[in-house]
């Protein structure tokens, strides 16, 4: 851990100014991810800007009939909020599948979006890692990659050929999987004012810049996450598969949300966690379901479409089949065709 200075921001503008004037500075919210990474010397900010006093710790109604989650609302307060439980039970269920009660009490919603991968090599300075040190190589590719990505890892080179991946890390969040399914919008403020980023565009694939996780500009702060009115409160399921029953990151997770009319699907959302550098969605796969009855066969077809192009790297190859089965199960449970226990 290196030495750093510490300041407390009292307004969003000053926080943004401070960060813009010193790009080696970092915001700190709950600290549950950043401090771990600092102890491992993976993150070495010269300055910590404590944002926990900024006025963005409430959940409020939006004009569009949705809810706005202030970036500083804790994961616990979000999951147990009555409005969230009633209108966005998928989000509540998803948050509660993650971490531990102690961590959820500290972790903020903004910080959750920004948490970094749990790739072992990323955490261990003794091993090369393109995300930590661009150009040094990806140790996971031929290493112990049980927890790594199977989708979106390869980019098309200029010759049209699929190139070797630069990084096969996953985004570890559970919450973000539900936010992707719900098509949340991330509200950010920077030097140039405010802007909104659709959730699907917030996190990015590793491509040639695996050290960059998302599209937030370096001077920007997340102020809120907006949930659209449609919350799929009747037919939803978050299914998380992991190496023990609690307190473990997802090997594969599925956030499934359906709208049904007389057994026919009128809207479908499927987002996957633990399989890619970002929560994984594929509109074509979801479209396959619309207008069709909620049957196992149809869910199977959607699962195949979602996993199209998936590639395993040895230890994680099992995820391809596991993800398909998990999708079918989660959709079945969302449609109440199958028990949830």
């Amino acid at each position, binding site marked *: *851990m*290196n*030495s750093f200075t510490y300041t407390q921001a009292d307004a969003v503008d000053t926080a943004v100014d401070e960060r813009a004037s010193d790009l080696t500075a970092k915001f700190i919210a709950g600290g549950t991810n950043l401090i771990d990474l600092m102890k491992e*010397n993976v993150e070495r900010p010269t300055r910590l800007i404590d944002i926990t006093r900024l006025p963005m710790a409430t959940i409020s109604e939006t004009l569009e009939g949705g809810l706005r989650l202030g970036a500083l609302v804790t994961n616990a307060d979000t999951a147990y909020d009555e409005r969230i439980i009633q209108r966005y039970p998928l989000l509540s269920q998803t948050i509660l599948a993650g971490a531990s009660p102690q961590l959820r009490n500290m972790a903020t919603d903004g910080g959750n979006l920004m948490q970094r991968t*749990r790739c*072992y*090599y990323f*955490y*261990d*300075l*003794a*091993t090369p890692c393109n995300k930590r040190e661009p150009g040094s190589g990806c*140790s996971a590719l*031929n*290493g*112990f990659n*049980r927890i790594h990505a199977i989708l979106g890892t390869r980019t098309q080179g200029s010759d049209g050929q699929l190139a070797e991946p630069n990084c096969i890390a996953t985004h570890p969040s559970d919450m973000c999987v539900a936010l992707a399914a719900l098509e949340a919008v991330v509200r950010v403020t920077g030097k140039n004012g405010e802007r909104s980023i659709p959730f699907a565009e917030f996190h990015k694939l590793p491509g040639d810049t695996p050290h960059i996780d998302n599209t937030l500009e370096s001077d920007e702060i997340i102020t809120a996450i907006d949930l659209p009115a449609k919350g799929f409160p009747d037919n939803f399921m978050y299914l998380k*598969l992991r*190496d*023990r*029953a*609690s*307190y*473990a*990151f997802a*090997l594969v997770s599925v956030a499934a949300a359906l709208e049904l009319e007389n057994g026919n699907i009128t809207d479908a959302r499927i987002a996957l966690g633990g399989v890619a550098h970002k929560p994984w969605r594929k509109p074509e796969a979801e479209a396959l379901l619309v207008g069709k009855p909620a049957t196992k066969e149809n869910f199977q077809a959607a699962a195949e479409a979602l996993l199209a192009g998936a590639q395993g790297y040895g230890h994680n190859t*099992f995820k391809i*089949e*596991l993800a398909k*089965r*998990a999708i*079918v*199960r989660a959709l079945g449970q969302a449609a109440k065709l*199958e*028990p949830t*226990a």
Partner: protein
Amino acid sequence: MTAIGKPISRVDGNEKVTGKAKYAAEFNVPDLTYGYVVSSAIAKGKITNIDASDALSLDGVLKVFTYKNRPKLAWFDISYKDQDAPPGSPFRPLQDETIKYSGQPIALVVAETFEVARYAASLVRIEYKEDTHETDLEANLHRAREPKSGIASLLKPPPPKPRGDFETAYQDASAKTNGRYVHAAEHHNPMELFASTVVYETDSKKKPKLTIYDKTQGVTNSILYVSQVFNIPFKNLRVVSPYMGGGFGAGLRPQYQLFMATMAALELKRSVRVTLTRQQMFTFGHRPATVQNVALGALPDGTMNALYHDAYGETSQFEDYTEVVVNWGGMLYPPENVTMDYKLVPLDVYSPLDMRAPGGVTGMAALEVAMDELAYELGMDPLELRLKNYSDLDNNEKRPYSSKELRECFRQGAERFGWSKRSFEPRSMKKDHNLIGWGMATGIWDSNMLGARAEAALLVNGKLWVSSATAEIGTGTYTIMTQIAADTLGMPIEDVLFKLGDTDFPIAPISGGSWTAATVGSAVQAVCEEVGKSLLKLAKKMPGSPFKSAKWEDIEFVDKHLRLKKDPSAAVSLMTLVNLNGGKAVRETSGVFADVMKQKNFTRSAHAAAFVEVMVDEELGTVKVTRAVSAIAGGRILNPKTARSQILGGMVWGISKALHEESALDHTFGRFMNHSLAEYHVSVNADIHDLDVIFVEEHDDVVNKLGVKGLGEIGIVGMPAAVANAIFHATGKRVRDLPITLDKLL
């Protein structure tokens, strides 16, 4: 007996829950300095350059120790051998530029604060010349060789010679199985990090005098090591370790923070604390990865006629760590034709280290799965197969057990579990998405007793003070020793104070191998009897004493009184007696050894039967252990409450070993990669459901006078196989590799 056998709560419970109990890194002294260890990034090679200039330029940094500037130390290997050192040449921190394994400690930064030391450590730049390393057990099986033997082989005998003709018998067998079992390495991961606080003082001749607060399972082991390596006389050393935040075997050897902190204290003439990080908890001993082959053969009626069991264990390049993996089948089962073999594969890793039921849980996790396979080949109930091949003899030694109530474990365990309602066919029980399976397995573990000493003093205020330099590794040692002392002298436990973990107390062995209750318990009983004998002498001197002609056998201690067995009205209070001692406490020190003559014709073991129910979601591969019953034959149960905790802990770990635990070794780097508690998965609360423990009555006066067998390890031994067998019963899939993660069931 009024205390022994009662479910008495831990006498140290209050200290622990109120935070008064102090651990090695919590003893604070003025002007303490802090050391932070720098670890090797490579697995094999040489250090070509160490540049500590940036670190040294920081305010508050006192020194950076490396192999270049370390003090001259003991020269011979023998000085570095601790009480649990396997044959070979022990690892010496900061010896030279050679790197022997990834994570090897290569420098110690000492600073005025922990934070500065940690920051400075990140600035030490090290260059290496790498050599190719070998860390892959399965890829190196061709290099397997016989282990070297040493004193360690006394407690860990090599496999017995083959008997009969396995090959022919196996060919002739009408039911047979043959399988290969691969187990991952595991790390102990006690919650408390390894730490040593070395308090530096000098004696009247200005020679260093150290008080060392160490995380260890044996203060005598630490003092021996420090004395030999740094050439300091015992009288100038004291090692203290009143509590330990979990050991599981990790503290059976002095870990390198003890070396580092002591060296720095002596050089800087300051008090030093070195605490390892969680990552560094993965840079010393571990349960070795193993590959085993088991083949079993039986006649049509289920009588076993052939048994083959071999094991390949990983060890370091510098020591031959061995454990008893394969001998158990020959002890438990009676086939005439048996071949057992055990070999080591030296790799570029640190020497493995005993972990709860070392070897036993490894071997039995393979053998008892093979037994289940044999049962299915025979079309026979797995419990019936065990009963069919039940043996009252240890067939390796051809001698009886001092006691063996395993049959009763089977009976009571099966009844509690409801085993008789089991349907034989795999995949025959279902609920929603889940297949349900029931499995069972046998457990066995040695019941050893070593030698130990203790001191007891009946004080003039009527309180009894007892001490021994043993350890409290979380098992309840404080409590059971208090009970034994209290009962021996007929006192309430409130009047007894038992102290341990201090080299000022009489010597006791390292606490492991489930021998502490038997060994130290016997010493405590014996020394309290010595006090009792002195009290009898005092009683005889009383004017008109009714005890004048009384012998030791004629008296008893009840309700704080010494009295005649024949005439309980002839009684005198202990308080009266101690006051006849000229104002002094009645104090005795004595030692005990096992009664070797009595023991030599018997094998001494604890036994267990484990029954497990699992629910397996077949589509998703997830496993839930919904209930488990362990029936234990462990001799006399001194305290059913602490005893039950030990067995529960063993059962939880057994589930954890079966389903979760694996230290993931990346062979490109020769490095354990999941070195955190977030990624090294142990079972959490949500993984554990209904656990039930039965203690079967068992009397044994051969193991020791108290009749105790020790319970620290027997609880884990049968569990992993029982879980694996239950998974087979649920799914029809035989998984022979541990841990059984969901991908293996897809």
